[in-house]
């Protein structure tokens, strides 16, 4: 048993739902108790989908267990096929149904349905959401992609415009909606046609056409890699594996795609604003900012490259929550001389961030909350998703426009270069409220009491904000974050600390206390404060 407070990934059947919901003409009959229907709200509330996910839950109850849950399943399948008339049917079990071993596969095939039925075996007690999504997509591709290799190749014999499949985008994906638009546009500029985008928006018939493309683009390896490998083996289709997140990676992606398609890359080597924005003098203050990066492996690895090469940050921590991609994250971590953090225990991540005291955290919604607690600026780079990760505006992470978006998103939480000087200048002005916190962080003011006894559901409101513990100079943080209580500060040193801008004061306090502890200094004086500053100076 594993004690879990918050999880990065849902169970594997939620991954299967992300595939089914992304596609058209697919229905998923899930053998599951009623509580599992909560998963619908992920799609209808977080992603604001205007349609129910195409999922029928059998919702068996305790009283059914002694009787015939198998019959219940078969009825649910028949009724779902009649009502929704899907072109292909997914069947499977959630964690509870897995234990009662009703064999959805056998039960569904016994019904001799007139459509393809794909049975999913998703071991709930071993695997998680991303794996479930990848496996489901692979099983669908395998089952529905029927042409023989020779036939598929003969179709490509005559001269044609090169085409590619874009594989991996799903429902509830982190900015998948906009990434697909951006990458499609980029391919068009190169004169490469998009054969199929899948699973997002694809029908079962579209999956059957996958072999028509000249090559595949594995846009989200967490979802698409298994299917891409099978297509490679079966149809000899090459896979583009460079993930175009960031300016440099987008250029590499274009080069790889152009080489495979036999087209001239220069048409697309237009540029994002990122290089100039990064070189302009106001960005000087970004130099060497210590950044901690955590997310799914693909986004984390991409973010690390951007952080170092395109922002001039120092990567001090790098990790991912999906062990399936541990190798990728290890390889990347070596580039930065780091030991990667591979864990799905959010308390471990919190501990690492608290210890490293980075100046910026690039993470998931979990790290956003951790960073908020520790008063460290943060930008979100990866799933798990939150309602805020589905903005109304166009906001890709990939391609050149994606690089522009990333520049803004990462720089925004930081105090700007000139602003930093102005804050120092006006710190002692009586009209400047030092306690107010950074206005752009949005929650500097004392929180109003909530009138709700419970949180508002559906991940729609960052309710947790109301509990933000304000940092007050005269008192220490609560003991909840495991930080040492301030001790032995002389009044003089305490006053000096107040002269330090608020956004580095917490760090100065911690560094000084750590320095004092390490050097066996009981009473922190003015000298200790400046000794510590010198000690930690870079």
């Amino acid at each position, binding site marked *: *048993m594993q004690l879990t*407070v918050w999880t990065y990934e849902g169970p594997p059947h939620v991954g299967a739902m992300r595939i089914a919901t992304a596609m058209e003409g697919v229905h998923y009959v899930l053998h599951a108790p009623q509580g599992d229907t909560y998963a619908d709200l992920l799609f209808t509330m977080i992603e604001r989908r205007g349609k129910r996910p195409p999922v029928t839950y059998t919702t068996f109850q305790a009283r059914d267990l002694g009787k015939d849950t198998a019959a219940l399943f078969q009825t649910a399948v028949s009724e779902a096929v009649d009502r929704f008339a899907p072109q292909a049917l997914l069947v499977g079990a959630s964690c509870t149904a897995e234990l009662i071993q009703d064999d959805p596969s056998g039960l569904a095939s016994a019904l001799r349905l007139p459509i393809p039925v794909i049975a999913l075996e998703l071991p709930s007690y071993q695997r998680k959401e991303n794996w479930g999504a990848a496996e489901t997509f692979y099983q669908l591709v395998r089952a529905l992609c029927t042409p023989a290799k020779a036939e598929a190749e003969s179709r490509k014999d005559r001269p044609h415009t090169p085409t590619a499949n874009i594989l991996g985008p799903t429902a509830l994906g982190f900015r998948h909606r906009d990434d697909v638009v951006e990458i499609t546009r980029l391919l068009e500029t190169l004169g490469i046609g998009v054969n199929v985008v899948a699973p997002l928006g694809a029908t079962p018939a579209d999956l059957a056409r996958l072999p028509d493309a000249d090559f595949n683009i594995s846009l989200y390896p967490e979802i698409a890699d298994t299917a891409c490998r099978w297509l490679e083996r079966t149809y000899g289709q090459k896979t583009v594996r460079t993930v175009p997140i960031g300016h440099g990676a987008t250029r590499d992606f274009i080069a790889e795609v152009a080489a495979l398609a036999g087209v001239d890359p220069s048409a697309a080597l237009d540029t994002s604003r990122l290089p100039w924005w990064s070189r302009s003098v106001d960005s000087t203050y970004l130099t060497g900012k210590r950044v901690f990066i955590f997310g799914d492996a693909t986004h984390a690895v991409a973010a690390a490259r951007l952080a170092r090469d395109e922002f001039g940050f120092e990567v001090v921590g790098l990790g991912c929550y999906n062990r399936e991609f541990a190798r990728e994250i290890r390889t990347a971590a070596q580039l930065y001389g780091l030991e990667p953090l591979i864990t799905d225990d959010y308390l471990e991540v919190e501990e690492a961030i608290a210890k490293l005291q980075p100046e910026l955290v690039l993470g998931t919604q979990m790290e956003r909350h951790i960073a908020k607690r520790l008063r460290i600026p943060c930008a979100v780079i990866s799933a798990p998703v939150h309602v805020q990760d589905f903005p109304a505006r166009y906001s890709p992470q990939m391609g050149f426009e994606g690089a522009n978006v990333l520049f803004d998103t990462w720089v925004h939480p930081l105090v700007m270069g000139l602003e930093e000087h102005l804050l120092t200048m006006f710190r002692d002005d009586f009209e400047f409220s030092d306690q107010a916190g950074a206005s752009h962080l949005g929650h500097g003011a004392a929180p109003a009491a909530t009138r709700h006894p419970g949180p508002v559901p559906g991940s729609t409101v960052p309710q947790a904000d109301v509990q933000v513990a304000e940092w007050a100079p005269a008192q220490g943080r609560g003991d909840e974050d495991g930080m040492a209580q301030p001790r032995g500060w002389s009044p003089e040193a305490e006053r000096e600390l107040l002269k330090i801008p608020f956004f580095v004061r917490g760090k100065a306090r911690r560094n000084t206390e750590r320095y004092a502890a390490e050097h066996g200094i009981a009473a922190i004086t003015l000298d200790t404060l400046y000794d510590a500053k010198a000690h930690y100076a870079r």
Partner: protein
Amino acid sequence: MNALTLAVPAGSDCAPAVRGAVLRERGQREVFCGLTGIIWLHRKVQDAFFLVVGSRTCAHLLQSAAGVMVFAEPRFGTAIIEERDLAGMVDCNAELDRVVDRLLARRPDIKLLFLVGSCPSEVIKLDLSRAAQRLSVKHSGATRVLNYSGSGIETTFTEGEDACLAALVPELAATAPGDALELMIVGALPDVVEDQFLRLFAQLGIARVHSFPARRAGAMPPAGPNTRFLLAQPFLGETARALEDRGAVRLDALFPFGAEGTSAWLHAAAVAFGIDEMHFRTVIAPGRERAKRAIAHAREQLGGKSIFFLPDSQLELPLARFLAQELGMVPLEVGTPYLHRAHMARELALLPAETVISEGQDVDRQLDRVRAARPDLTVCGLGLANPLEAEGLTTKWAIELVFSPIHGFDQAGDLADLFARPLRRRDVLKV
């Protein structure tokens, strides 16, 4: 079971009405499981921890339903059963003990720990009551360990609170025989509402009033034959039965929603405690008037509008009664996951005879009825609200009714407004 007629208890001061058949459905449901109750229970009892013994799905449900990934450590968590637990490679009980030890070492402030059963723990027949006994002994003096099931194969949504409170009842101290009558308010209420009720009972002259659950594990009220209890929530059937087993007596009343419901609810206590009728009227008059004033503006908006409740929290019947009786709405169908006929008798008697009462669910068929009826307002769960809005139907998220303070005189206006707001919004938007 007789599903056709409803027994109205003798002596009821409501006109008994014979209803038509209750539509009972046993198809696919779209309702949360009882684990969801942890979201408000852990905030009510501030030194209790809720440890779900379940799967990754359970943890994901709590996280998604709570709508937050709170940065602070919440007072609930999940012991996720893994392959090696199922394969017998490790002893589940030893694993559970290890998890609880680690948890209590981290959180020594926890005085009451609930082991909460889930669908997987029920199916593999993990005996959590034995585990709770064993762990209670192990941690005696520091933490009491109890268990209940919030599994979706046995409980829907608010039944989780019922199961939790029912598990607490045998732990309550006994009242002394011959003691004066005591009043117990049963059901987790927001603190602000609880305090309002306590003030009213004090003004009425009822000396000994307790809330159950209390805000701290060590302050749970006693129970015994001299206990008279009022259910503040309509979903507490098992808790009521457990209290009755201890000799406590339930005061039958409307549930305290709106001016009328709250008056009737308070009145039941006043009668049981021999409070003078004139005094009762004097005490409740200001609150009752405030409630009526507060809902007046919503009445203009809601009067004559039709409403359809999909089953969610078991609050549906009392709320439909409030909306019909005090705001002039027309309930077309009122769905409830479970219908407790005795506790609901007075509520049912006040609903219009044409209103269809449905128990259980077959979600696709029920949605067909919603589409055919095209109600002005549909009350439904989060999974259904946006899809129905996209079809042009105006909806109200049912879960907000569970999380918001809606009981009593001074929340009647807020309660009415929860229903009026979606309609008002529909009218103001020009996009």
